[in-house]
């Protein structure tokens, strides 16, 4: 462990990305994500990497995809309106299977919303923001240290699955300052860029999937003469107007994430051993939910907390297991109600699911979630 430092969540995210091997950043300033760009501008050149401030968020997304194709691990960061602008090229990254990490430090929306205020309103945008069928990986940290860890994970997953990964931060964690000890470089596992497994002469095809359904696409400049397009393409990389290929490619894009779902769906449980009720929360809200649960325990309520670190793919298995053992679930989120729909889908009526929503610029008070727990207990099944 390195020496303890006082650090902001956004700064920890920069440190994590660099530790995971990121050497390129393109971005455009927007509150509350700006410190990510500023940190990158300062630190990237110290490790021989490059930072470029682009003319808008669309260009920021394009420039990082170009850098990634040329072999550099690349990140962009934004919030609210900027994340909306990035959507078309997030889809491009999914379709063309380009590793990239998009940091979204969520703020209140829609539109300009409340620029400096916290929110968790982009849960569904993270999953469905771009058009068409595609899988998505999104991770959400609840502490400064975890901002570092999830940044490392996000970069690793983007490389391993050759897919865009969203680091779904919120203003609470992004601007939170905590004392953290970051791991030594040697203790950090890094997933390297995948490499072609055969030569051009041996019939290399850049999008032929490996056993894990992920292709070993070459970087530009390595002599493979690959073609990359956002059109549906076959293993050669060239577009093809075939129903069969369209079906197969769409299926594979989903399955490459699906088959690894257990491994990439991180969930933490607190006070759950004997719990009769569960609070489901994530990101900055989970900090308050934890306190609320601890307070309720003091009052004698057997309640626990389930914290989602991986938001997408959704933790179906973990939530299903909980639903089988508790009398009721409370979903606390800083929005009008987004994640709760997923919880309801998975719980499928096995126990009541209640929503504790907040969408007024302010973060939860523990008492608000405690009140939600009390209501759940009063109305839950006997």
């Amino acid at each position, binding site marked *: 462990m390195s020496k303890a430092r006082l650090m902001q969540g956004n700064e920890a995210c920069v440190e994590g990305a660099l530790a995971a091997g990121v050497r390129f950043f*393109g971005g455009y300033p927007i509150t509350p994500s700006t410190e990510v760009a500023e940190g990158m501008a300062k630190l*990237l050149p110290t490790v021989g990497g*490059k930072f470029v401030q682009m*003319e*808008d968020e669309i*260009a920021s997304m*394009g420039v990082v995809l170009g850098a990634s194709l040329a072999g550099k691990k690349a990140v962009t960061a934004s919030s609210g309106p900027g994340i909306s602008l990035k959507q078309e090229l997030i889809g491009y990254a999914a379709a063309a299977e380009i590793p990239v990490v998009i940091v979204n430090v969520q703020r209140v929306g829609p539109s300009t919303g409340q620029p400096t205020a916290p929110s968790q309103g982009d849960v569904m945008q993270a999953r469905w923001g771009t058009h068409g069928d595609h899988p998505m990986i999104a991770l959400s940290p609840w502490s400064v240290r975890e901002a570092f860890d999830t940044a490392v994970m996000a970069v690793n997953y983007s490389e391993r699955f050759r897919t865009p990964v969203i680091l779904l931060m919120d203003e609470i964690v992004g601007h939170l300052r905590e004392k953290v000890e970051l791991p030594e470089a040697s203790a950090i596992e890094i997933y390297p860029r995948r490499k072609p497994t055969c030569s051009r002469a041996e019939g290399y095809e850049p999008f032929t999937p490996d056993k894990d359904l992920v292709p070993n696409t070459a970087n530009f*400049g390595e*002599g493979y*003469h690959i073609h990359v397009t956002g059109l549906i393409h076959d293993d050669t990389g060239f577009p093809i107007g075939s129903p069969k290929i369209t079906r197969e490619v769409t299926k594979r894009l989903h399955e490459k994430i699906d088959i690894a779902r257990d491994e990439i769906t991180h969930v933490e449980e607190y006070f759950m051993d004997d719990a009769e009720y569960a609070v489901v929360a994530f990101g900055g809200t989970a900090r308050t939910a934890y306190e609320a649960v601890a307070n309720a325990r003091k009052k004698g309520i057997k309640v626990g907390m389930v914290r989602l670190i991986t938001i997408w793919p959704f933790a179906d298995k973990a939530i299903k297991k909980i639903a089988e053992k508790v009398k009721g679930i409370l979903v606390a989120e800083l929005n009008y109600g987004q994640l709760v729909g997923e919880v309801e889908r998975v719980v499928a009526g096995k126990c009541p699911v209640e929503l504790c929503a907040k969408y007024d610029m302010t973060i939860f008070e523990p008492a608000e979630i405690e009140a939600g727990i009390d209501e759940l207990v009063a109305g839950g099944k006997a």
Partner: protein
Amino acid sequence: MERSFEKYFRQNRLPHLWCPGCGNGIVMKAIVQAIEKKGLDQDKTVIVSGIGCSSRASGYMDFDTLHTAHGRAIPFATGIKLANPELNVIVITGDGDCTAIGGNHFIHGCRRNVDLTVVLFNNSIYGMTGGQASPMTPTHKKATTAPYGAIDRNFDACRLAEAAGATYVARSTAFHVQHLTDMIAGGIDNKGFSFVEAICQCPTSFGRKNKMADPAKMMMWMRDNAVMKAAWDKLPDDKKTEEKFPIGLFYNESETDYATAYNEVIQIAGGADK
């Protein structure tokens, strides 16, 4: 007989999807002839395109090729060049791709002076989507979205590029193939943002609407109206009619390119050896 430029094409991807008489093939060939002339390493050259008929050229060219999204070729190309400055990066874009949806990226690409060579296939129309007006459709010309003639004023992309900071700006046409090849080759030589406007014909979507459905006629129009820069400069104003336009090298100044400038940042930050 194998012609020397053929090695730059993916033979198994041809024939191309363009209409008979389309000018895109001529401009594409001029690009590979410029590449050949400059002796660029085929393994270290990347072709980046946007979306449009013209942007389909990347798929036919035997390099690392990237067919991006509509308007976004320049940001992708910027990322490639900065990530690996040893790569030669050539951008293929259309008049709509470059000056409408990609207009902001275009001017900022010029301003940053990233070492890219951008070839704009100017057919004065949105070819791929069937003939809608573009920002480079001349005023009064017809398009499916300007059935009574365009009232919008059109961009002069060369003047725009120069004003925005491009360090090499030239124009030629699909009729003047050798000249076009030279203009592109000059752009490849320039270490900085090079912009070459290649005027070319779209008989299908532009010609038919504007009484020039015959591709040969469209090329004769280029022959008759293009004026070499030196002659243009001497031409009295009353001879510079609406149809006439200058071709040639308009601007070329040496300025530090973005990747070189960034290397200084890396030096200052102490990251050079990492």
